[in-house]
């Protein structure tokens, strides 16, 4: 059934002049038309995107220079922020080009194979599981929701030099009392914000097929002074999207959750839900 395994890999490499490997972006049943692939750019260093048949499924792949994509070169390049970003965006462009034509299972960034044959074989070996996953992801998109604690009002902090705690004097005991009161207040605020983040999650989950969490992004990454409490992704059926949006409106409404800020982006290709049941 596979069309390409007959192509000798050595011949394919010779044609290009320098050795190439095959970078795979996504698995689909509905390959995009040629013109859509031609107009999409994968990795800038590689050739055009193309369709590789693998049993009843298709892989969208690109030939990329082996010298830039071997393990050492890749590691080095991904250590450079600019290259990391270019690589991530290139991967996203490739997956996106496929998604416009129908459901996709995105592969991890830089899934590389020696040649078409081994790429197709890897997919056909898991054809049933991948087909089931395509069914699960079809007609659904991902929504990213991040919840942060609101920043405390600085004036309130400044004013509690005498305002909180049981001691108002100037002695060591009074100082310790005020310090522990401030610590308790911070802990209380954090606990309350965490509870609100959980409540937001619970409400959104009701309108999602599935939910998952990414590791909260550090304050260095978010550029905020307050912690990220929730970095969640929701798989939302297209028919449920209005209900999900309404739920977002509700949880974000003024006065509803006063200790957190909610940030939403989407729709995303359902990257976060492209997982096989066996965990691979």
């Amino acid at each position: 059934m596979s069309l390409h395994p007959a192509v000798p890999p050595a011949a394919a490499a010779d044609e290009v002049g320098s050795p190439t490997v095959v970078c795979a972006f996504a698995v689909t049943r509905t390959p995009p038309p040629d013109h859509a692939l031609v107009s999409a750019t994968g990795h800038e260093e590689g050739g055009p995107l193309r369709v590789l048949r693998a049993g009843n499924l298709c892989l969208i792949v690109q030939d990329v220079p082996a010298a830039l994509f071997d393990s050492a070169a890749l590691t080095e390049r991904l250590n450079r922020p600019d290259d990391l970003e270019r690589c991530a965006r290139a991967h996203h462009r490739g997956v996106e080009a496929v998604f416009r034509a129908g459901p996709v299972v995105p592969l991890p960034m830089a899934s590389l194979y020696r040649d078409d044959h081994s790429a197709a074989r890897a997919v056909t070996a898991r054809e049933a599981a991948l087909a089931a996953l395509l069914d699960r992801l079809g007609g659904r998109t991902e929504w990213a929701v991040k919840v942060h604690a609101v920043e405390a009002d600085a004036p309130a902090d400044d004013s509690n030099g005498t305002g909180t705690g049981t001691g108002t004097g100037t002695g060591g005991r009074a100082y310790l009392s005020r310090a522990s009161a401030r610590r308790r207040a911070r802990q209380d605020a954090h606990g309350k914000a965490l509870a609100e983040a959980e409540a937001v999650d619970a409400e959104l989950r009701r309108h999602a097929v599935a939910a998952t969490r990414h590791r909260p992004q550090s304050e260095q990454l978010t550029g905020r002074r307050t912690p990220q409490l929730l970095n969640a992704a929701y798989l939302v059926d297209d028919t449920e999207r209005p209900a999900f949006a309404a739920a977002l409106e509700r949880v974000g409404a003024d006065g509803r959750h006063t200790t957190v800020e909610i940030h939403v982006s989407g729709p995303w290709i359902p990257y976060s839900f492209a997982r096989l049941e066996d965990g691979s």
Partner: protein
Amino acid sequence: MTAVDPRSPGPAPVPWGGPEPYAPIGVPLVDLLDRVLATGVVVSGDLVLAIADVPLVRISLHALLSSVNERVPAPWPDSGPL
């Protein structure tokens, strides 16, 4: 529906109801990396399949941290140890 913090770095959250971008033109890099590095079905090949491995993700996050540090000055006065 979302509280947009004008101080937060990067592009604004993707607006609702746009023409299905799938998405995110100008999507925040950190959110993209959350997805392309940590997700996806690993269909093992015979060559390299390194990105999903923990060590490489750690490398990448390190790179990303450097990137953020260079491009986005910390929003508070004494930026502390980054």
